[in-house]
């Protein structure tokens, strides 16, 4: 058994694809039509293209509890997903220049530094750097 796909619930798959590729720098890996406008849409990290795929899934549009849960996490500022970076401060500055909104600025916490941004598709995403 191995980890190959991790899901991120999104409200709009096309908008999410644009944000995750154009701003975050992910690469599209699979794009399979699933009917009714839905897609099996996955991305991989540019630095680890053989690593796990991120699935942008439209669950909040089809399953009400998913939407309720996503809204609650958003309101509390809780990131359900996190990505590792080499330098949180540098990535924060790069994304601020691209007009990405942060709810937590780069903050050292013991042996890590974190920051949290809004992915514009319903989620808070945390960046993590191991110190």
């Amino acid at each position, binding site marked *: 058994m191995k980890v190959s796909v991790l899901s991120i619930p999104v409200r709009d798959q096309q908008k999410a694809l644009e944000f995750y590729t154009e701003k975050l720098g992910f690469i599209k890996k699979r794009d399979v039509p699933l009917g009714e406008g839905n897609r099996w849409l996955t991305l991989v990290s540019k630095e680890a293209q053989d690593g796990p795929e991120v699935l942008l899934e439209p669950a909040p549009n089809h399953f009400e509890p998913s939407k309720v849960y996503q809204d609650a996490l958003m309101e509390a500022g809780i990131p359900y997903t996190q990505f590792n970076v080499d330098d949180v401060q540098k990535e924060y500055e790069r994304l601020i220049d691209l007009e990405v909104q942060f709810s937590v600025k780069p903050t050292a916490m*013991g042996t890590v530094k*974190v920051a949290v941004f809004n992915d514009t598709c319903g989620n808070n995403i945390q960046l993590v750097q191991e110190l």
Partner: protein
Amino acid sequence: MTFYEKEIHRIGRIVYANQPQINAIIRTRQYLDNNYESDLNLDVLANAQSISKYHLLRLFKKYYGLTPAQYVIDKRIEKAKEHLVDGMSVTETCFAVGFESLGSFSTLFKRKTGKSPYKYQKEQLSRSMQ
């Protein structure tokens, strides 16, 4: 300030109260990052931070969730992947990242990545030619 940010600060004050201790462990990790290909000598690491060897082991595990030895192995495998992608031979890679035997390197590489170093390199090089 969001609920989450408040929680980060609250938990940080509880779990990460001893900043000098944390700084010593961060310096240890930085040392390992810069010397992963050398033999791991805990006595040297501990002396450099003026703490006992066993205390250093416990603290490293407490803050990073891995022992220094486990951390170094992961680092060596990560660096080995980079060398293989850059076209370095498997044998050269093995010694460049600090392993002393090709057998133990290949076994560990396969256990950590699911593929032998030869297969990993072949796949990566064919991907880059696509």
